[in-house]
């Protein structure tokens, strides 16, 4: 993922589980403008897999999924 991406909103969902990582990510994106970028932090592999897939199914552009440390993931999504 390019380091030039500007993140408009960050959502820390550490401690949250599926499907609520997706639900909360969806809620955050819903009130953002098309083209804006959301960064979501999750701390479980299931969410790291499911959230990007669900976001793509919704039509959004997943810019990157990056493991930050032993448990945390960063998911960067651009609103369609």
């Amino acid at each position, binding site marked *: 993922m390019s380091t030039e991406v500007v993140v408009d909103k960050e959502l820390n969902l550490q401690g949250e589980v599926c*499907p*609520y990582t997706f639900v909360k990510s*969806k*809620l955050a994106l*819903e*009130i953002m403008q098309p083209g804006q970028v959301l960064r979501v932090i999750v701390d479980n592999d299931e969410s790291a897999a499911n959230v990007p897939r*669900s976001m793509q199914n*919704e039509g959004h552009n997943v810019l990157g999924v990056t493991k930050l440390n032993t448990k945390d993931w960063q998911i960067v999504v651009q609103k369609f």
Partner: protein
Amino acid sequence: MAGGTSAKLAHLRAPISELNFSEEEIRRYSRHIVLPEVGGIGQKQINRASVLVVGAGGLGSPVAFYLAAAGVGTIGIVDDDVVDTSNLQRQILHTTADVGRKKVESAREALLALNPNLTIVPHDVRLNAGNILDILKNYDVVAEGSDNFPTKFLVNDACVMTDTPLSMAGIFRFSGQILTVVPREGPCYRCLIPQPPPPGAIPSCQEAGVLGAMAGAVGVIQATEVLKLILGKGEVLRGRLLLFEALQMRFEPIEVKRNPECPVCSETPSITELIDYEIACEMQPPVTTQASQ
């Protein structure tokens, strides 16, 4: 768009800039929020809405339950009756322990047990020309499930006169009928039946019977229609009378048109005042020719 341009629903379309649900609400409504047609904005519209359920009986029970489950913020319940043992075969808002209680009280308790976030407004009255407009002004949509023709005609007329979208239904034996009235955009009840049938012309479900599950099957369709009106999604049964024959398990939509000479919703209505028709016995009419609750 479902609901068309009803002014009553306009406030639900006001822009929403914050989706500040509590953790409990996110969990409670998560299955709505993930639906593309609903999302957080749609859920907020549902939470903002107010719906009047006429009749806390067979049809009113599933309608009220599913609207409460969905999170409709304000639900009014109209019924002046008390719970009777014979109700429990289909009126699932009430329990055996409620026999003898006012239906609106029993209903309020059941709905708040399901969803305590709501406002449930009991209207312990029989609707009449003198009280209906005052009650109706507080609601965006009406779900009609009364047990008599006079109330059905009164509710229809009042909804047309106030531009209030309305779900009407009736059940009888193994049959059900559902129609959604969007005033001036589709037919109203009187476009189908201009005047109530004479008292005694139609057997009541007390005499003819009704399969209890019919109330659930048809009432849930009404709840679905109401939610679609609130969300402005999909196509409601505007201009379509849905016939359900449970023994054959057949659904058939019948196209119905606005009657250009309808006594209440035409350009030159002959009925401009609300009418209190006489209630004979405890008639329980359907949408068109046979009815029950």
